[in-house]
């Protein structure tokens, strides 16, 4: 049976369903008995969902002008190579 420390070290693997079945079983048994680790894992899950919704998660916006400027730069770079 894993310790609380083991639980905290592998909780992402548990949530991402990346533990082999026997480890998953030990994990599950520990969580059934340990209210602290249940809370810990629930809070990790909440943390992951919160990261995904945080302002930092927004993909930076790219304006049409910026796109055009990059395309021009790309064209120049291939011309240089050819020339």
């Amino acid at each position, binding site marked *: 049976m894993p310790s609380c420390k083991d639980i905290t070290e592998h909780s992402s693997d548990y949530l991402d369903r990346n533990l082999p079945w026997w480890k998953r079983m030990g994990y599950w048994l520990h969580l059934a008995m340990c209210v602290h680790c249940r809370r810990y894992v629930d809070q990790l899950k909440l943390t992951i969902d919160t990261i995904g919704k945080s302002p*930092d998660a927004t*993909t930076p916006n790219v304006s049409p002008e910026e796109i055009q400027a990059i395309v021009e730069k790309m064209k120049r770079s291939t011309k240089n190579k050819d020339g």
Partner: protein
Amino acid sequence: MANPTLPSDDELIPRLLANDETSYAQIVAAYHGLMVHLARAIVGEAIADEVAQEAWVAVLRALPKFERRSSLKTWILRIVSNTAKSRLRHESRTVSLDESLEENPIIDPARLKPNAHWASPPAMWHADTPDALLASTELRRCISDALATLPPLQRAAVTLRDMQGLSMEAICKILEVSESNGRVLLHRARSRIQMAIEEHEGQ
């Protein structure tokens, strides 16, 4: 931000190789924002855009040799990651993987008993949904600050996985780390954010 009109890699690659300007514009529109997001995670806000632009030139240069062992998107992001990492090295900043669990445990050892069970267990949080947590300006700043202080590769892993929803397989290819190292990077990043939220919420 994903561009639903982007043609498949099979269609796109020959057109890019033929220097088709419309295809350049399509692919830049589809991926540049994501590239800046990744570059920002590794080198920081100030030069992220510059790194992403540099990566586009590198993409065109390397495209004739692209062996299709991953999707075009994954391959482009790997070039961004490498461009960003070499920029860090130029500034003599380290991009290291090896933060051992002993030196930097997930949980402060003072919170555990000698038998590795909780001595000081997690407290209940006031809020129990992402929206409720993020309603607090102060907590949003805490999360942002915690993200900003993560080591570059941890920040890249959490950006690609939890913000951009990429698969772990793609992320490990992009960051050029093993599957197990990729998972460690991601878990460390998430744990640090969790601790930042706990400091704010769990009292």
